[in-house]
């Protein structure tokens, strides 16, 4: 058994509005004069799991995502190994 660390990067799907991101983008553009053309606010989860292999670890992480961590209706995610 070994420990594997992953980063799960969760964002709203592209067809779901992100008013928070839009508002912060406007602030950066208009008040800080930083020409940001796109800003999406998401979540980053660092997860360490115990498994027999990296493949098994990934499967566990996928399970965590599909069953709890990610809202499949509005969110999309990417899993990266650290």
């Amino acid at each position, binding site marked *: 058994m070994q420990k594997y660390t992953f980063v799960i990067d969760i964002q709203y799907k592209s067809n779901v509005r992100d*008013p*928070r991101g839009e*508002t*912060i983008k406007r*602030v950066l553009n208009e*008040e800080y004069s930083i020409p940001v053309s796109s800003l999406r*606010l998401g979540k980053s989860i660092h997860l360490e799991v115990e498994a027999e292999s990296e493949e098994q670890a990934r499967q566990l992480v996928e399970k965590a995502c599909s069953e709890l961590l990610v809202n499949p209706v509005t969110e999309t995610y990417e899993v990266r190994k650290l």
Partner: protein
Amino acid sequence: MTLPKAQVVVYPGSNCDRDALWACKYVGFDAEFIDIYSDIDADLLVLPGGFSYGDYLRVGAVAAREPIAQKIKEFVSRGGLVIGICNGFQILVEMGLLDGALLQNSNGKFICKIVDSEIVDNSTPFTSYYLKGERIRLPIAHGFGRYVKTNDVNVALRYVEDVNGSDQLIAGITNTNKNVFGLMPHPERAMEKILGSDDGLRVFLSAFNYIKNNGGVRG
């Protein structure tokens, strides 16, 4: 003798501003609203509760960096009185005028209830009308009220029981000079018995009389 004057800063998204103005007028202040572009002309500045900028990014983060921020800092250095309530407290912390950080309540949820608090320091301009150790009932209504202590800080108000996971049950603090007071509970909502408690009245009364007796910083 001019009447002590209070200004309530209305940030985009502030929503306890009208309650704060009402409280200031109730105790006798000449009070008005100002916005983030205004100049400060007051003895007491109130940063009210609410959801400035929707709390989008970090609570108080965007508001803390608005044009008025510099003027507030100058006002503080001149000895002006500032009270930051709830979101106002969060803004003062983001501005660096008060120490520490305000993070999400430990149970991850917004809480609205009247809680028991204890006056720890009654030597501040905002708490002189209370007895040291006095227990008072004040409403809280916040999702991000967990105070995280980063340096030694002057505690003015403490919760009697844990409500949100704050370090040492800290509910309200001041700066070293005690002219800036930040607290998560809402004294402006505890001004009349019919609302459940009038224990908050004395916060505004203390400030009003401090200014009357010591002269304010206007002019």
